[in-house]
Structures are given as C-alpha cells and as structure tokens.
C-alpha cells in the first residue's frame, strides 16, 4: 500500500479540494493521501472535507501559504 502524493502548490480554489477528492476516490482503503499546497483557504477547507467524508485527518504541517496535509483513506 503506497502513499499518494497530490501536489497542488500554486493552484487556487477549487483545484486543491477537487484534486484531494479525486485522489481519495482512487486510493485503496487504508492508504495515505498527502496533499501539498500553498492556497490558504484550502488549508482550512480540506480538513472540513475530510470530516464530511468521514475520513481520518492524520496531520497538518507548515504555514498557511505552504502546507502539507495527510489523510487516511
């Protein structure tokens, strides 16, 4: 089971959220999706989406202009 990396640095709303969702759709259950981004609003909304999808947020690191979020599928 390998981790999936979603690199949306430089992308703006709604691309980080959409790319996160696409990756989670293809990820095998139990695998980890790591999202890298620079859009501040996405750093706040991705955890909301993870909660709404009933998935587990493993961690948020970095600044709001350069962050990384790990999600367990």
């Amino acid at each position: 089971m390998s981790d999936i990396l979603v690199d949306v640095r430089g992308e703006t709303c709604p691309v980080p959220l959409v790319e996160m969702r696409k990756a989670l759709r293809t990820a095998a259950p139990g695998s980890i999706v790591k999202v890298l981004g620079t859009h501040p609003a996405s750093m706040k909304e991705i955890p909301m989406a993870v909660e709404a999808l009933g998935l587990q947020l493993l961690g948020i690191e970095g600044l709001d202009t350069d962050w990384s979020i790990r999600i367990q599928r």
Partner: protein
Amino acid sequence: MATPRVTMVLHSGDMDKLYSALIIGNGALSMGMEASIYFTFWGLQRLTKGGLEKGPLSKMHMLGLGKWMIRRRMKKARVASLERLMTDFRELGGKVIACEMTMEIMGISKEQMRQEWIDEYGAVGMYIQEARDSSITLFI
C-alpha cells in the same frame, strides 16, 4: 440516509456566474455531496459546442474589455478554465441537465450541444423532484 445533495438552476449565461455554479458544484462533490446543475435559458447556451467560455461578464463587461481584463487576472492567479471545471464536475459524478423548453425556444438541437456533458434533457418537474430532497438549492 440518502447522500446530501446540492441542486442548482443556472439561468444566467454570464461567465462569472457559470464559474460560481461549477465551483460550488465541485466543492459539494469534493465534500461528499451529490450535485446537479439545471442549465436553462441563457445558461443553456453555455452547453452548446464552443459556447462554454463565450459568456459575457455580468458586470463591467464593457464590450469585452472587462472580460479580457478579468481573464488576464484569472490566468495570473491560475484559476482553472471552465472546461477543466466542467470535466472535474463530470468526473466526480456531477449531473448536468439541459432544459428542453429552452432548446425549443432558442432553436437549439441536440446536435449543437456538447452531448457528452449532458446526463438528461428535462423540464421543471425533474428540477422539483431533485430539489425536494436537496439540502441546498440555488438559482444562479
């Protein structure tokens, strides 16, 4: 329990309003909801071949100058194209419904439409049936 749903009516054909509809739709799908957009009246024209990016700005269009300026700024800010947002919307399971009455009024045939995007051709009953069970419904 049924999956929560967003149902939108896109009456406007303005570029910025189509952006709003597709961004809200993609956001809803990304957050685990279902989403449908009913393209009607001026909005329906955006589903014709080559019509997606053709809408004017709802304000300050200024014979196209305003639109040109906004598009330049959007490109600089790396805002996704409408084509990409539509592709994402479809890929994540978003539903596109084309209003049949508008097609009649405007004399638009199915052959003139981007049929690969359209799930159904319908009328008001289809909208009401979906909106009845939607937690969010918007008229744009």
